């Protein structure tokens, strides 16, 4: 009988036992350091309504140049390049050399008439060009990379559209070679790797509009009219981690090829197998120097350059070094003399070795393995046989380019000469 009461007592005992355990656990958690994670405040984002147009202009300048004194930087012989990386291809000042994309110079004092037209003024003309209508038709279902349908009505809207959808209108003569000016070499600015947020894009447009005439600012209204919604101050938490490399702008032997390519922004123009950032460049040749360099030295064009006394390389290695140190020595057929000329100041000997070692190790197989292919305007033609993908526009354009290479080159030249915006060389 004495054991009869057991059951109830056990319940109490067990309950006491686990309450003790739980109290110890809870006490322990309370004793450990307490950190409360607060939700990020929305105020982090730039509130467009709270910033003056001048503020936006200043911000746009910083995004473009990375400094508030771009001319000073230029005077020191450095390129002012900000987060947006625009000056890599666009020309903003006479002192600057960049002609891959339409120039954005606007200097009323310049004697040359064409340079007096500011981008703000020019943009209004662009939307009225008959070609704009063609692009509207071409991308009626939405441009394939960005999904936008060209529908800019004012110059400001055009400027905004060009950043979200560079292919929506390609200025004559500035398309990717071989695409008949239907594809732009410019990256989509609100996507990686540039990844500007809406407010930043508005700031850049503000900069362009207000450079000459602060009364021309319409960027915010244009954005809202173009997208048909309010420019909310989102951005904040979407703002990407800045990836621009800093430190001394010198390629060092202690770095990996990837780091050097990033530092020197080779990826802006070239595709390089084995380098993760260099997958999209469409301005310079595909750098598979294990294949290219020996062929180039043997090519009649190179022989001619040697005779002319500009080129001197006899081995593949020498050829690559020459191409980096003195880009003008030999221009690969199908390309312009576009490459920056100041690399000889930026490479240490060992740094150059690292890059050359990497480039010389790349060949067609490496490119294929990385899914890269030659540009349409390279003489060698695509590595992948064209019949593999005839139906896609890209391959079609490549095919066409092979046959029409000469004509395109000629027409390019003509276009540049005739264009209302000068690509000075």
């Amino acid at each position, binding site marked *: 009988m004495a054991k009869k009461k057991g059951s109830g007592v056990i319940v109490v005992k067990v309950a006491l036992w686990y309450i003790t355990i739980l109290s110890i656990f809870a006490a322990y958690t309370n004793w450990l*350091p307490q950190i409360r994670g607060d939700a990020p405040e929305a105020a982090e984002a730039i509130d467009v309504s709270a910033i003056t147009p001048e503020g936006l202009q200043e911000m746009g300048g*910083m995004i473009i140049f*990375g400094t508030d004194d771009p001319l000073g930087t230029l005077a020191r012989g450095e390129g002012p390049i900000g987060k947006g990386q625009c000056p890599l291809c666009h020309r903003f000042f006479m002192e600057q050399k960049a002609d891959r994309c339409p120039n954005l110079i606007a200097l009323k004092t310049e004697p040359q008439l064409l340079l007096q037209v500011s981008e703000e003024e020019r943009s209004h003309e662009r939307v009225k060009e008959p070609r704009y209508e063609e692009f509207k038709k071409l991308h009626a279902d939405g441009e394939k990379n960005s999904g936008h349908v060209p529908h800019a009505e004012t110059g400001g809207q055009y400027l905004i559209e060009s950043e979200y959808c560079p292919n929506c209108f390609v200025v004559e003569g500035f398309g990717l070679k071989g695409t008949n000016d239907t594809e732009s070499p410019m990256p989509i600015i609100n996507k990686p790797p540039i990844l500007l947020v809406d407010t930043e894009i508005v700031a850049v447009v503000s900069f362009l509009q207000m450079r000459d005439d602060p009364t021309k600012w319409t960027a915010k209204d244009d954005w809202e009219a173009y997208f048909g919604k309010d420019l909310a101050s989102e951005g904040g938490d979407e703002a990407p*981690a800045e*990836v*621009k*490399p800093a*430190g001394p702008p*010198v390629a060092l032997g202690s770095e990996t090829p990837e*780091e050097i390519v990033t530092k020197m922004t080779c990826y802006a123009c070239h595709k390089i197998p084995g380098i993760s950032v260099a997958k999209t460049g469409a301005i310079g040749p595909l750098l598979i120097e294990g294949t290219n360099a020996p062929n180039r030295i043997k090519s009649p064009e190179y022989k001619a350059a040697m005779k002319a006394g500009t080129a001197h390389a006899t081995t593949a290695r020498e050829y690559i070094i020459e191409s980096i140190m003195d880009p003008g020595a030999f221009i690969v057929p199908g390309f312009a003399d576009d490459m920056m000329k100041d690399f000889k100041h930026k490479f240490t000997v060992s740094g150059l070795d690292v890059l050359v070692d990497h480039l010389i190790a790349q060949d067609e197989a490496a490119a294929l393995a990385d899914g890269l292919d030659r540009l349409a305007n390279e003489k060698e033609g695509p590595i992948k046989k064209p019949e593999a993908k005839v139906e896609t526009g890209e391959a079609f354009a490549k095919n066409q380019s092979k046959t029409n290479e000469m004509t395109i080159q000629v027409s390019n030249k003509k276009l540049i000469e005739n264009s209302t915006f000068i690509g000075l060389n």
Partner: protein
Amino acid sequence: MSKFKIKAFFAQLLALILAAPMIAWAGGGGGPFDAGTFSAIKVGLVVFAIFSAWLIKDKMGLPLPKLIQAPLLWIICYIGFRVILQPPIPFSLLAMYMGVCTVCIFLYCSLTRPSWEEFSHPIAVMLREDHATAKMSRYATFLIIPGLIAAQTYNQMLPKFGEPIELRTVHPAPPASINVHKKLVTLQTAENPFRIGDDGNYLKVGDEQKYFGGNAWTGDVPKFLQEVQQGGVVFFGTAGCFFCHGDNLDGKGPFSFAFNPIPANFADPGTISQLQETFVFWRVAKGGPDLSREAFPWASAMPPWEKHLTTNEIWKVIIFEYWHTGFFPRTWG
């Protein structure tokens, strides 16, 4: 050979094995005492404890009852963590360790039925039996335990003026990049632009050793030492770092005693030699105000030097600091 001799031999062997690493460790020094004497005391203590335990248990045939063993073990653990382990560990860690030890000593006493009976029998006797000794100890216990609780409560309620316990990460994770003088510096990849050898190439970390020692301020010196000189000018002149960080970079400058925590001691192998150059750059350029959330409560009197120095001066003073202390920055290669 007698059994005793074998046992004695093993005991000595054990003591030697235990003593060897202890001497090595204690010889490393540190702590308030002179390394030599203090480590001798420590080693002696341990050896003596082991020897006497062996003497009592095996030689004299007097195994300690579990009830005595348990608190003894606890005290040994406490002494081990509190006194022998140097430099002293913070109370939070000590509490954690002692908590584990307490639980495990209890488990040790209750591991098997015999040991549990050995442990609990005296307690049961004390609680249940009705003779004088048991009664006395019972009353004593019931006086002591509330007394202890009361003392503890009194202690708790007593107003204290100590500094609050804080979780302060002295070397918090740096941001990915910082903006100094409107230039973006990515801390992961940035390099000291003045780390240049005789050949004009970048000087790999470790290669600067050849410049260490000697006088950098005499006549014609290599390029690297010129940078060191200029860094020294910043340290003692332009910025006046020495007011806090000291003439010998040991954190004992004339102002240092006013600060809590004290200024960083660069001569200590736990500071700049554990950090990348870019981390030091971040701390110098941004100072206390830019410490991250992790480093709460941001207890740092370091000013943001970017307001007073140029980027180049900051890089140079970093070169100087490493040169002067003879440390190398950390690399992750």
